[in-house]
């Protein structure tokens, strides 16, 4: 994401809708991409992008230009995505249209992959969010920490707890990962 000029950010902070639209045009793609990585559902990602920019506009007076728009927007987007994850019930079937693995390990069957994906959806949302960003999307821990508003150690802990819970769930289904 590219930061706007300081004039633009100051105008946005003062509630200028034209400045807000310019920032929206500059950052909507990055915000949408970030949310899509978390929720993995294009339609929900579009709705949440709108929600995120609505929250951004609502909080314009609290924006600190020194912090940068990018990090702030990502933080708000992450919270919106987390709120959405909390409202979702674990699926019994996986949504269609998700990308297939690029390099599938022949030792891991489709059935194991499906059960793993379903077990992952049963994890608490905040653990799922940390794991999907840090492990699946391979985002740097520092970026994940900033987006979640927690420390890097806390991100690592959440990832570890997510993997441990996932392993336990799979073991209960008779799968020994």
């Amino acid at each position, binding site marked *: 994401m590219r930061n706007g000029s300081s004039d633009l950010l100051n105008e946005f902070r003062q509630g200028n809708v034209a400045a807000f639209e310019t920032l929206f045009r500059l950052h909507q793609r990055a915000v949408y991409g970030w949310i899509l990585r978390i929720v993995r559902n294009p339609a929900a990602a*579009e709705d949440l992008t709108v929600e995120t920019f609505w929250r951004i506009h609502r909080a314009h007076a609290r924006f600190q230009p020194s912090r940068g728009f990018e990090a702030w927007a990502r933080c708000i987007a992450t919270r919106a995505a987390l709120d959405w994850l909390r409202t979702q019930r674990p699926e019994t079937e996986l949504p269609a249209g998700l990308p297939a693995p690029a390099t599938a390990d022949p030792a891991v069957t489709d059935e194991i992959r499906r059960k793993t994906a379903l077990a992952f959806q049963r994890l608490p949302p905040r653990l799922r969010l940390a*794991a999907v960003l840090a*492990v699946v999307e391979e985002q740097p821990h520092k970026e994940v920490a900033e987006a979640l508003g927690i420390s890097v150690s806390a991100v690592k802990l959440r990832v570890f707890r997510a993997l441990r819970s996932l392993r336990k769930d799979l073991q209960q289904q008779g799968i020994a990962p």
Partner: protein
Amino acid sequence: MNANDELRMKKLLKQSLPPVEGESEPGHDLWPAVLRRLDARPTAIPWFDWALGASLVAFAAFFPASIPVFLYYL
């Protein structure tokens, strides 16, 4: 869970949930939807949400040991 288990689980997770690849962008311009959202009146919080919140606070006050359990699932 040792380091090897952790590594195996990471690999399995990546196999099961492939990353979102390439440049992703919305299917259409979202600005009109943002404008509509800005113009919409803020929704009022229903009374039962307040009641639920009050019940949770009361429960936590009477059973403080339950607070970590709530926090875990948040």
